[in-house]
């Protein structure tokens, strides 16, 4: 736990240094060139940009904890408001995708291992291999092209349909379904890319687990095959998958940012990409920090989950 805090502080500090030391005028990075001189003066003193580096750092930390990231050049609004707005969208998409792909990977990997060498296994393994190695943005584009453009089953962009959400008479359920409808394609993209690796890990983990002594004991106890598979082998075999989810979180969030960008899903990842291309430094910095927090916290969650699932750690 403490580790996470330390890591975060290091990231915070490195970012601070980078922004101050990179070529160009650091002041222009934090202050919108379109601002009036008086506002600019105010902001500079608020952020301590006219002070020596050490003092600036203190200001920086203080501002961070107060949630003051300055104003976005593009939106003209406080950065904190923007990223706070975007956060739930990212969490919704990302968390759902990871959980679904992990569960699918565990379930299918278990089945693949049980049918090892047969057609079912070959199909699943090849499927996992292929989907896992497809280039994510390209997969997203293909999905849009086929399902949104050609077949018109899903919307091409965005998270919501304005006409649905702006209509005051529309029920919550309809709004919720609308979001889901928009979520299908981006979710599928993330899901397809990730479940393959979990499937392969679960499969090999099951094959290893099935060689264990306690499986032999279970068979000797005269238990049914299904019970041995699902009750004895799978819970043990699923543990490495959980670990793998944690290890690949950084990679997954890359994919998350790409997916949001392609599908115009209003999340933090997309915000980061856009703010970087538009030189909206305050927003870029804050988005990056928030993503870093998300990744670190997710790691923590996975660690806790693993400790909960494995009694050897819990007790």
């Amino acid at each position, binding site marked *: 736990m403490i580790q996470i805090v330390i890591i975060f502080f290091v990231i915070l500090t490195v970012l601070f240094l980078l922004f101050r030391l990179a070529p160009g005028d650091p002041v222009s990075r934090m202050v919108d060139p379109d601002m009036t001189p008086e506002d600019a003066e105010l902001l500079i003193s608020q952020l301590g940009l006219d002070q020596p580096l050490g003092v600036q750092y203190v200001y920086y930390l203080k501002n961070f904890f107060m949630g003051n990231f300055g104003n976005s050049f593009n939106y003209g609004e406080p950065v904190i408001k923007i990223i706070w707005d975007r956060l739930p969208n990212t969490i919704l998409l990302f968390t759902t995708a990871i959980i679904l792909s992990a569960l699918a990977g565990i379930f299918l990997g278990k089945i693949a291992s049980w049918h090892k060498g047969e057609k079912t296994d070959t199909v699943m393994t090849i499927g996992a291999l292929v989907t896992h190695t497809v280039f994510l943005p390209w997969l997203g584009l293909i999905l849009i092209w086929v399902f949104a453009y050609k077949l018109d089953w899903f919307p091409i962009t965005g998270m919501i349909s304005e006409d649905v959400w702006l209509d005051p008479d529309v029920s919550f359920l309809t709004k919720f379904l609308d979001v889901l409808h928009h979520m299908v394609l981006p979710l599928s993209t993330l899901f397809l890319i990730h479940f393959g690796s979990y499937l392969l890990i679960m499969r090999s983990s099951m094959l290893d687990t099935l060689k264990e*002594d306690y499986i032999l004991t279970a068979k*000797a*106890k*005269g238990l049914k095959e299904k*019970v041995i598979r699902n009750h004895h082998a799978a*819970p043990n075999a699923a543990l490495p998958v959980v670990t793998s989810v944690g290890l690949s979180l950084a990679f997954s969030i890359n994919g998350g940012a790409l997916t949001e960008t392609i599908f115009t899903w209003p999340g933090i990842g997309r915000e980061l990409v856009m703010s970087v291309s538009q030189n909206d430094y305050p927003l870029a910095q804050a988005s990056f920090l928030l993503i870093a927090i998300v990744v670190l916290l997710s790691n923590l969650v996975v660690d806790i989950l693993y400790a909960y*699932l494995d*009694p*050897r750690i819990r007790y």
Partner: protein
Amino acid sequence: MALLEVDNLSIGYQTPKGFLEAVEGVSFSLEKGESLGFVGESGCGKTTIGMALMRLLPRNGSVKSGHILFEGKDLLKMSDEEMRLARWKKIAMIFQAAMNALNPVHRVDDQIAEAILAHDPTSSREDAKKQIEDLFQLVGVPKDRMRDYPHQYSGGMKQRAIIAMALACRPKLIIADEPTTALDVIVQHQILEETKNLQKEFKISIIYISHDISVVADVCNNIGVMYAGQLIEYGSRAEVFGSPAHPYTKALLSSYPTLTGEKDKLEPIPGEPPNLINPPSGCRFCDRCPSARASCKTESPAWVELTPTHSALCSCIR
């Protein structure tokens, strides 16, 4: 009718290098309440026999020929489902290296209850829990440890829990494969004593598999000595230890130290057992046998009956 009658059992494994004949032509019988010990070095086939009795041979293993009659029914001819129901209820097994025999993610009592409930659908969880309490008392594990996970147990406790689990369905026969190898001598002794008591109390037949003669000598009524897949001597404890007939048995006995008795020189047996992928015709022990004759290499030895209860597979006796 004997509880268990094994007739001319031959078992082999398909390996990349060829077909390995692990067990050849083994026959023995076991009465109710009796204990039989199988002794021999690693690779002699004793574990294979145990696994075959439960029909738990690995995928590349198969019974080539023979019958296993348990309470009159041939186990080898039973359907998979019938065998599954018979496992643990009729015959239970305690495996070699049982340190990992319990599933680490489930509590100990749940695993034992599972066995009970699988074979007696009429009993409830409460009944099962009560039975487990009694079993734990029997084997000497404190009741308050029932809800623990296996990794929280010491080695000796784990072994006792496993014995309790084996007794859970009151089987007629328990096959114990090297159950005490991983334990220190003191715990080993305790468990052996408890095993003997349990056997007397419940009239369970036990097949005890070990490479350690001293252990087998302690617990078993009858002894079977195995070498290179064959049963080479069979008799009561007194007969096999008192008057061993087969040269291998003699060599085996003299390679073990005795705590009391004279300080003789320990005599290891030189050489190695033959490769069972192409087992030699003739006596399989002759290369290492001190009393081998020229004919031993080509002629298969025959069973020689020394007493109605004591026989050995050797051409050089009498």
